[in-house]
């Protein structure tokens, strides 16, 4: 039965395939905005949606698996959502406008949303995959079940190898090191997080991780995995490991779309309405490919869910998704790293202003790329408050302050702070007692008028009679004036 033949007044039937970060958020926002929508959500995993971003906190031990659930068990009922978990969709019949489930049944739709996410890519390391399944003692780092396997294996002291020095691999490595596991990260490229960092930053990051108990092996591939023993690398060396975490990237999950004949490149191609080349089918999140977006991050998925919820509920028909500015922000205790934009510009670049500061001993690295006074790229490692400020300049398109060095240094050099070592050095016009607007020169004048000691100055000027916070300063000024009087000119 097509949408046009349905009874007037019945809601548009929206079927969401995928109950992960994107699918769950879309369902929430559709319900949050109202409108007449019959909503079905089909999830492959056997439990309620959870917050994938927080899995590194689960591995690190800060959060329990229960605490990263996005919804409680009653959520679907309360929000009138036909939620079916542990349900696999096997095909889309675009002509009939229904999806087929693994058990052979079908679900009709007026609008179909693919939020199928992505799946881990596993490198062709010998022994890692056995008949298409990960060998014992190895896990990808993608699902809550993966996390539970990793945590179960990570008894304190067990050496662990992490394959892949990207964002997630490093977060996992840091979390496991924090649990007391010796960790080795094996990364085939010459520096860590090469997509987001330049070489200098990658080196400082590796040095910083080393101080936290994470060894980093760069420019080598894992050649062979032997359960219980570890990894043999292609340079002949050996990494002992009781467990291996595979974090070598993801592939958008596009099988359904491809089989249904939708245009798929790296991901399912969508326009600014998040629509595929079938007007009745949308795609959001990791599985979707939009020109303004790098997939694999939650922020675009959530922004896409917001736009699509507007469109599907009729809240707005003109809302469009224009892409998301991508900021990489590592979530790892004691490693503060933000990177975004044009990070590979070199300092001798002529069409951009590039500043770079490296302090490897203290784990700090800061690079700033500007064009027309606007920040267009940055790497900020180990200068947390600068990272926060620079990211805001980038996100909000605010012209950067002219004191670029102060910007890079963050709180290391608070702007506008002049340090006076003694009240004697204060300029005469400085307000000493804020509560009563008393300047240093007024105190000096009161002294010359005969006021002595803190109490004398207080009576004459009311300094110290508010919050009393300036008492020490007034006292020092009184001492200074007294000693100046004793010293013959």
């Amino acid at each position: 039965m097509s949408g046009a033949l349905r009874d007037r007044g019945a809601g548009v039937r929206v079927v969401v395939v995928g109950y992960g970060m994107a699918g769950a958020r879309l369902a929430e926002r559709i319900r949050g905005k109202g409108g007449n929508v019959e909503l079905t959500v089909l999830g492959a995993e056997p439990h309620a949606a959870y917050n994938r971003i927080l899995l590194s906190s689960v591995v690190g031990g800060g959060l329990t698996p229960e605490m990263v659930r996005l919804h409680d068990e009653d959520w679907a009922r309360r929000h009138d959502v036909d939620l079916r978990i542990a349900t696999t969709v096997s095909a889309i019949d675009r002509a009939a406008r229904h999806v087929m489930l693994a058990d052979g049944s079908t679900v009709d739709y007026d609008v179909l949303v693919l939020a199928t996410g992505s799946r881990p890519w596993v490198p062709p390391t010998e022994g890692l995959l056995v008949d298409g399944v990960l060998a014992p003692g190895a896990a990808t780092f993608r699902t809550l079940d993966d996390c539970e396997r990793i945590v179960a294996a990570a008894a304190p002291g067990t050496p662990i190898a992490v394959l892949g020095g990207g964002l997630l691999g490093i977060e996992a490595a840091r979390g496991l090191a924090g649990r007391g596991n010796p960790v080795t990260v094996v990364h085939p490229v010459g520096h860590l997080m090469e997509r987001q960092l330049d070489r200098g930053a990658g080196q400082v990051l590796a040095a910083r991780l080393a101080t936290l108990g994470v060894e980093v092996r760069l420019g080598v591939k894992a050649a062979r995995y032997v359960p219980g023993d570890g990894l043999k690398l292609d340079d002949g060396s050996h990494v002992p490991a009781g467990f291996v975490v595979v974090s070598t990237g993801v592939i958008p999950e596009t099988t359904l779309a491809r089989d249904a004949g939708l245009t798929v490149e790296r991901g399912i191609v969508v326009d600014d309405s998040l629509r595929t080349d079938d007007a009745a089918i949308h795609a959001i999140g990791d599985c979707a490919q939009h020109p303004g977006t790098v997939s694999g991050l939650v922020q675009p998925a959530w922004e896409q869910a917001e736009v699509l919820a507007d469109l599907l509920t009729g809240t707005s028909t003109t809302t469009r998704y224009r892409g998301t500015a991508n900021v990489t922000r590592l979530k790892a205790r004691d490693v503060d790293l933000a990177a975004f934009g044009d990070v590979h510009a070199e300092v001798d670049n002529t069409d951009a202003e590039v500043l770079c500061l490296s302090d490897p001993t203290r784990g700090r690295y800061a690079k700033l790329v500007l064009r027309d006074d606007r920040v267009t790229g940055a790497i900020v490692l180990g200068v947390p408050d600068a990272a926060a400020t620079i990211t805001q300049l980038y996100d909000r398109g605010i012209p950067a302050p002219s004191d670029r060095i102060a910007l890079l240094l963050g709180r290391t050099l608070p702007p506008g702070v002049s340090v006076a070592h003694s009240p004697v050095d204060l300029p005469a016009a400085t307000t000493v007692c804020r509560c009563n607007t008393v300047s240093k020169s007024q105190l000096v004048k009161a002294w010359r008028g005969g006021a002595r000691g803190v109490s004398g100055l207080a009576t004459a000027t009311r300094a110290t009679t508010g919050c009393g916070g300036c008492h020490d300063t007034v006292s020092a000024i009184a001492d200074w004036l007294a000693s100046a009087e004793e010293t013959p000119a």
Partner: protein
Amino acid sequence: MTIATPRTGTTDTHCPYCALQCGMRIAGKTVEPRDFPTNRGGLCQKGWTSAALLDSPGRLTEPLVRVNGRLRPTTWDHALDLVADRLVELQAAHGRDAVAVFGGGGLTNEKAYQLGKFARVALGTSRIDYNGRFCMSSAAAAGMKAFGMDRGMPFPVEDLRRADAVLLVGGNPAETMPPFVQHLRDAELVVVDPRRSATAEKAALHLQPAPGTDLALALGILHAVVADGHLRHDYLAARTTGFDDVWRIAAAWWPERAERVTGVAAGDQRAAAALLARAANAFVLTARGTEQHARGTDMVSAWINLALALGLPGRQGSGFGCLTGQGNGQGGREHGQKADQLPGYRRLDDPAARAHVAAVWGVDPESLPAPGVSAYELLDEGPRGLLVFGSNIAVSAPHANRTTRSLSEVDLLVVADVVLSETAAMADVVLPVTQWAEEDGTLTNLEGRVLLRRRAVRPPENVWTDLEVLHGLAVRLGQPPARFPVEAEAVFDELRRASAGGLADYSGVTYDRLRDGEALHWPVPAVDHPGTPRAFLDRFAHADGLARFVPVDHSGPAEPPDDEFPLQATTGRVLQHYQSGAQTRLVPELAAAVPEVHVEVHPDAAARAGLADGDLAAVVSRRGTVRARVRCVATIRVDLVFLPFHFPGSGSANLLTNPELDPTSRMPEFKVCAVRLEVA
């Protein structure tokens, strides 16, 4: 220090300005500080100079009536006859609600009570609200939701002195209530403020969020509390309900995400969480910076959620509180000058409350009007008659151009005040009334303690008390004279009965107990009850005794910056001035210290606009333009400007502000709007 015996000819009293109500002693026309728990012998410059207004040349000393466009002196009889006649005419022609009453948070409990009674009984109008709507309404609404009761600080201010850590959100007491800062000296202080204010300078940790993003910050810190193992599970189970729903929202605000929205480093959020969690005693305090938003109630709820997660409220030596602003901001919101409220913090839509209060007033409960509309809406709907007591709306309400137009379109504007405020200057009739040292009355300070201020000096001859004014008008409107007494103590005794059994129960407070120096924090349900310095120690005020976590999420300012208005403006106070400045601008010493409005700007933002320190700038929003002197401040965010709101005319910061209202508290979004900067 012990309290010294007053010298002969002196009267112990309290400062006329803010809710700290510093103890002072007045002798003739001079004041000096005295030791009192809130100020411990300190006074700021406003307090020291407060007596200057007693004989200021700017003082109103006779009733004024507008004749041919000009205010001219007249007699009280003529002024009150005129007002009463016009009120009757307007109500006859346009209905009861055509006449509105606007009160103030500086009015004594007695005046606030009597004003509410006057509106509902003598005028029979539902249209009454007050400037506290612009002040404490978000804090009050959130407090009611979470705790079932709104007492700004449900603990004595001295408890702060023994705290190990204090998180102060959106408050600048180093300028707004300076002697209060003494209580924060020994605690590790975390200050949340987009500006590096005088208070932020004193902090161990200053979190500087983008304006209007406090809620995301609170969620980020709450996330850190949970993820870093600081959650007080035992307290949650025993004393609260609703955490799970709040966590599902906070779970999505891991500190790195909150950082991107707020600009506060994730590490600083975690540091704040840890600092509060490891303190044996800690407090979370909010003030106007986080409350005066179109989502202000939610913002306060978010900070309360954080305090609850840390197990602070209702625990001896720890807690959550809101810093009340105006002198009687607390008492002023309890006794019936609020649109939806009856005395004792009773609800006007509660039949039992209506019956109780109507019985005290000797009227039929059916005769009491329904709840009215909030302050800005009341002005915006265009009343035909408006009576203003203790408020300078023309300067203090948002969207000043709109507000002044509303005021100018009122057929009859009556203003009772001490000085010719900007609002009084627009009035048809101006009634000169007594000020703090010239009358008796009680106030309830920021810690819920009821204070007696006694008459110390004789008022100018032709000046009446507000109670006398209300009596005079009520009688002319046909009320029995005895229903509107003029003695403050008589009014208070009636207030005691009206509040008995309510949330804010004053029935056990008497003038005698206050004269004896008893420290009485409400509720005081009986004359032999010692008062309640610390509320919630055993239970919260909801029926089940539990505090409520309230699920709230971030949504950002109502008016985000754009290409046309790329900066954000926020407003606040300077030390030397109070509220609209109507009083303090008349004190020569204060006016000399801060004579005009300034705008704090980052030097780069100023330079980009072609402005230097000391230049005159035009700050432009969608609603108006302020001309202000540029003050370059390197510590302010590049995209933020700050203006104090004490000044009138083209210097009024409220020309800029956004009247978008909070859905619950009806608080306007004073604290953030989009602006641009130009050469004036």
